[in-house]
C-alpha cells in the first residue's frame, strides 16, 4: 500500500466546492476582522516605534518561541502555554503543508510531498505536537478550576452589582473548549481513517491516531470519518471567525505588541509636543492615544499578573492595572470599535459609552492617583503592555484641570517655587553639610571627579539627613573627590513627571541641566534612585547625557579598590534587603546592594518577593505627597510584615531616602519597632568600617 493518505477522502466534488467556498469566505472575514482592528490603531497618534524593525522582529520572535515572558514567575502556566503555543503552531503549519501539497504542488507540478518517508515523519510530528497541545489545554483547564487569585475578575473599584464580567469567563471557556475540541476531533478523524484503511502498518507513525483507531474496530468508520470531518472543519472555521473579536486575537496582536514595545517604557516617559502643550498636556479624547496604546488595550489577555503585582490594588486602592487597561479597551471598542464579542457590562451610570473624558470619567481620578508608578505591572506583563505610559498621559489631563489633592498641589507649588517639595528655601538645600567637620566642595566653583546629586529627601528630610552625612563622611574618608551643586540643585523631576506635571518637569530639567553644565566633573552619583532614573533615562532627551550611578554601585567599587576597608563582620544582624522600585526594576541594579551586604558580613535572607519582583513602599509617582489614610493596609506595612516572615530577622535594609522614610514609619505603625530596625545600607557600611 502506498505510504500516504487521501485528502477529502470519499468527498463528492460538490462537497469539496462547498468546503472551499466556506473556507475562503471565512478567511476573508478573518482578514476583515483584523483589518478593522488595524484601522482602529491607525486612528491613534504616531508612537515612534518603527525604528530597528529587524531587531524588533527577531526579539519578538525569540520571546514568542521561548514563551519566556509567560514562564517568568509562573512555570506551570508558562509550560502549559508553551505546549499549546507550539502544538498550535505545528498543527497550523501541518495544515498549511497539506493545503500547499494538495492545492499547489500536486495540481501544478504533479508532485506529491506527503508520501513515503516524509509522510511518516510528518505524521509523527503532528501526532506528538497534537498530543502536547491537548496536554497543555488540559493543564490550563485544571489551573482555571483551582481559581488562582490572578484569574479572579472581581474589580477593586466597583461593588459587584455595578458590573458584570461573566462574558469574560464565557470567552475564556469558549477559547479553551474550542481548541480542545479541534484537537480531539482531529485525532478522531485520523483514527477513523486509519481504521477504515484497515490499520496499515506504516500508520504506526501516527501513534495517537493508531492507538485510537485500534479501539474503533467494528464501528461505522466511514460515516464517523465524514461526520467528524465536517464537525472539525466547521469548528476550525468558526474558531478563525471568532479570533479577531475575542480573547483569541492575542495570538496575532500580542506578537505585534511585543515587537513594538518600548524597552524603556515607564523608565522614560513620552514627551509632550510643543504643539500639544499649547492646548493641554493630557489625553482628553480617543485620538490622543498613540496606536501602541490602543494596541495595548487589545493585547491584554486578562492573565492578571499585573493585578496581583500591583501595590495599589493590594492595599485596597481603587486601581487594578488590568482593569484600567480593560476599561480603556471597552471604551475604545464602544467609541470607535470594532466590538468585542464578550465585553464586560457596566451598569448604573458606570457604562462607558457616553463617557467623553478618558481621565476623570472613563478612568476615575482616584484610580489614576492611586498608582505608585512602581512599574510592577509593566514588568509583570507577558505581552508588553505599557500601563504606566497611559496612566501618566491621563494624569496629565487631571493636572491640566488642577484636579488633585491639596497636599499634592502644595508639593507641586513648593517644587515650582523653591525646587524642593519641602517648601524650604533653596539656600537651605546644603544645610545638612553644616554638621560635617570638613567642607563639601562646591562643584560649580572647583572641578571634582564625582558630582553628587543629593536629591530632595536626602537634603531636606531631617530623618534622612544623618544618612546623607554618613555617605559624605565615608566618601571623604575614602579619599573620593566629590562635590555638590549646593542651592543650584533642584528636585530632579522624576516624580513630578510621573504625577503628570510635564511643564514643571521640563522647567526642573532646564534648571538642573544649567546647573550641571556650570560644574566640572567626570561622572554623577546619587543617593536617590528616583533622581538616578531621571538623570539616566530622561535627561538625555533634553541634551544632558551623563554617566550616572547609585551610591551603592560606587561603594562596591571603593571596597573592591581597597579604598574602603571593612574591619568588622556584622554577623549579629539577620538582615533582609528591600529593592527600591527605581533602583531595581527601573534601573536593574540588584547586585551592588547585595554585594555590600555580603561584604559587611550580615546574615542575609531574601524576602518572598525580591529583585525585579520587589514590592513597592507606596511612595512613588507622587504618592508620598498624597493621603494614604484611606488604604486598607499601606504597602509599606505589608512589606514589613513580609520581612518578618524571615525567622530571626532584625534589620530591614534600604537604599533609598523615600524607603527610609516610609519604612521607619511602617515599623512604628505596625508595632514592630523593637523587633525590626530600618537601616540605610550606609549605616551598615559605617559600622563595618569601625571608624571609632
Amino acid at each position, binding site marked *: 500500500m502506498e505510504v500516504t493518505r487521501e485528502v477529502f477522502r470519499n468527498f463528492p466534488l460538490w462537497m469539496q466546492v462547498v468546503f472551499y467556498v466556506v473556507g475562503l469566505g471565512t478567511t476573508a472575514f478573518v482578514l476583515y476582522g483584523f483589518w478593522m482592528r488595524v484601522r482602529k490603531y491607525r486612528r491613534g497618534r504616531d508612537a515612534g516605534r518603527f525604528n530597528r524593525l529587524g531587531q524588533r522582529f527577531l526579539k519578538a520572535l525569540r520571546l514568542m518561541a521561548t514563551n519566556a515572558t509567560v514562564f517568568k514567575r509562573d512555570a506551570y502556566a508558562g509550560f502549559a502555554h508553551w505546549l499549546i503555543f507550539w502544538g498550535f503552531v505545528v498543527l497550523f503549519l501541518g495544515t498549511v503543508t497539506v493545503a500547499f501539497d494538495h492545492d499547489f504542488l500536486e495540481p501544478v507540478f504533479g508532485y506529491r510531498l506527503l508520501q513515503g518517508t516524509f509522510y511518516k515523519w510528518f505524521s509523527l510530528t503532528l501526532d506528538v505536537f497534537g498530543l502536547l497541545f491537548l496536554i497543555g489545554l488540559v493543564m490550563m483547564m485544571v489551573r482555571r478550576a483551582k481559581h488562582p487569585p490572578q484569574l479572579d475578575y472581581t474589580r477593586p473599584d466597583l461593588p459587584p452589582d455595578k458590573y458584570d464580567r461573566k462574558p469574560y469567563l464565557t470567552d475564556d471557556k469558549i477559547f479553551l473548549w474550542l481548541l480542545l475540541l479541534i484537537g480531539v476531533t482531529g485525532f478522531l478523524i485520523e483514527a477513523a481513517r486509519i481504521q477504515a484503511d484497515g490499520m496499515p502498518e506504516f500508520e504506526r507513525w501516527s501513534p495517537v491516531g493508531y492507538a485510537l483507531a485500534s479501539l474503533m474496530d467494528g464501528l461505522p468508520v466511514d460515516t464517523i470519518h465524514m461526520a467528524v470531518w465536517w464537525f472539525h472543519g466547521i469548528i476550525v472555521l468558526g474558531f478563525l471567525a471568532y479570533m479577531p473579536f475575542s480573547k483569541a486575537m492575542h495570538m496575532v496582536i500580542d506578537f505585534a505588541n511585543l515587537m513594538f514595545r518600548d524597552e524603556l517604557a515607564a523608565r522614560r516617559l513620552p514627551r509632550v509636543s510643543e504643539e500639544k*502643550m499649547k492646548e493641554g498636556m493630557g489625553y482628553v479624547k480617543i485620538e490622543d492615544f498613540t496606536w501602541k496604546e490602543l494596541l495595548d488595550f487589545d493585547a491584554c489577555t486578562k492573565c492578571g499578573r499585573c493585578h496581583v503585582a500591583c501595590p495599589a490594588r493590594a492595599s485596597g486602592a481603587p486601581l487594578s492595572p488590568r482593569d484600567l487597561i480593560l476599561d480603556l479597551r471597552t471604551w475604545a471598542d464602544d467609541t470607535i470599535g470594532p466590538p468585542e464579542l464578550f465585553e464586560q457590562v457596566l451598569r448604573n451610570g458606570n457604562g462607558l459609552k457616553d463617557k467623553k473624558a478618558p481621565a476623570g470619567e472613563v478612568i476615575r481620578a482616584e484610580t489614576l492617583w492611586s498608582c505608585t508608578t512602581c512599574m510592577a505591572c509593566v514588568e509583570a506583563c507577558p505581552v508588553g503592555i505599557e500601563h504606566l505610559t497611559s496612566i501618566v498621559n491621563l494624569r496629565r489631563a487631571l*493636572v491640566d484641570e488642577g484636579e488633585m489633592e491639596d497636599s499634592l498641589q502644595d508639593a507641586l507649588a513648593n517644587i515650582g*517655587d523653591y525646587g524642593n517639595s519641602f517648601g524650604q*528655601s533653596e539656600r537651605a538645600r546644603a544645610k545638612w553639610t553644616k554638621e560635617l567637620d570638613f567642607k563639601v566642595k562646591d562643584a560649580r566653583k572647583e572641578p571634582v571627579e564625582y558630582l553628587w546629586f543629593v536629591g530632595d529627601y536626602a537634603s531636606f528630610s531631617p530623618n534622612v539627613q544623618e544618612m546623607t552625612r554618613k555617605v559624605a563622611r565615608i566618601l571623604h574618608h575614602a579619599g573620593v573627590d566629590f562635590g555638590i551643586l549646593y542651592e543650584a540643585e533642584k528636585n530632579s523631576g522624576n516624580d513630578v513627571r510621573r504625577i503628570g506635571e*510635564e*511643564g514643571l518637569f521640563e522647567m526642573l530639567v532646564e534648571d538642573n541641566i544649567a546647573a550641571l553644565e556650570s560644574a566640572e566633573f567626570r561622572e554623577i552619583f546619587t543617593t536617590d534612585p528616583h533622581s538616578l532614573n531621571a538623570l539616566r533615562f530622561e535627561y538625555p532627551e533634553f541634551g544632558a547625557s551623563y554617566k550616572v550611578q547609585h551610591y551603592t554601585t560606587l561603594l562596591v567599587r571603593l571596597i573592591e579598590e581597597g579604598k574602603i576597608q571593612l574591619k568588622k563582620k556584622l554577623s549579629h544582624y539577620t538582615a533582609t534587603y528591600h529593592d527600591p522600585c527605581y533602583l531595581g526594576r527601573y534601573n536593574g541594579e540588584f547586585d551592588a546592594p547585595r554585594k555590600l551586604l555580603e561584604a559587611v558580613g550580615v546574615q542575609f535572607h531574601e524576602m518572598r518577593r525580591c529583585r525585579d519582583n520587589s514590592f513597592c513602599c507606596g511612595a512613588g509617582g507622587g504618592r508620598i505627597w498624597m493621603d494614604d489614610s484611606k488604604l486598607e493596609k499601606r504597602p509599606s506595612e505589608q512589606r514589613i510584615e513580609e520581612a518578618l516572615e524571615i525567622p530571626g530577622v532584625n534589620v530591614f535594609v534600604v537604599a533609598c531616602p523615600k524607603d527610609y522614610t516610609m519604612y521607619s514609619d511602617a515599623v512604628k505603625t505596625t508595632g514592630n519597632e523593637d523587633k525590626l530596625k530600618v537601616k540605610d545600607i550606609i549605616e551598615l557600611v559605617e559600622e563595618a568600617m569601625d571608624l571609632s
Partner: protein
Amino acid sequence: MNIVVPIKQVPDLVEELEIAASGKDLDREWLKYKINEFDDHALEEALCFKEAHGGQVIAVAIDGEDVDKALYTAAAKGADRVIKITGEVADNSHAHARALANVIGQLDWNMVFIGVQAVDERDGQTGVILAHYLGVPHISVVTEVQQSGGGVEVVKEFGGGIVAKLEVQPPAVFGIQAARQTPRYVPVAKVRRAMRGTELEEMDAGSVDVTAGSEVVRLFKPESKGGAEMIEGSPEEVAAKLAEIIKSKL
C-alpha cells in the same frame, strides 16, 4: 457680574528675613516674592463665583517685584483681564487704595474681592479705604460669595466660630479671608502659555495725592527678654502668688 481682584506680591517668609541698613525696611536684595496668600484666596473665590454664575474676573496689581508673573498666573487660572497699575504709588494702604480706586473706577465692575490682609501690611485697611473711595459698602472677613436674587449672599466670619450670612446689593468691596476651596494649582505649561498669549494691560495709577497713611519709624526683630519664673506649690499657693504678681504690676 464682573469682579475685580487686586493682587499684591509680598516677601516670601520661607526665606530668612534681614533688616536693611536703614532700619526701616527689609533688606530686599535677596528677597523672594510670592502672591499674598489672602489675595490668592480672593482670586480663587472670584473664579469660583464666575464658574458658577458667569461674568468676568479682572486681576489688577500695582507694579512691583514679580508682578507680571503673578498676573500671568492669574490669567492662567482663568482671569479674563490682567492689568498692571503703573506710576508712583507710596507703600501704604491709603496710597494703594487711592491708586486702585482710580483704576477700578474706569472699569466695568460690580464687585471687588480683595485679600483681607497681607503679611507686609501695617494696618489691614486697603479694602476698607478702597470701598470708601469707591463709595460702596464693604464687608470684611468673607469666606464665600454666592449670587442670590438680584444681589449676592456673603458668608462672613466672626470670632469664636460664629458665621453670618449677609445679603448685599453690589457694587461692593469684600475682604476675602478664605475661598470656599483651596486655591487651584495651575500647571507650569498653562502659565507659560498665558505669558505668550495674554495681553498684560497697563493703566496709570493717576493722581495718588493722599496725605494719610502710616510710615515705618523703625523695623526690628522681636526682642525677647530672658527670664521665666516657675511658680510652684499647691493650686492655692500658686493662685495667691499669681495674684500678688498681678497686683504689683498694676
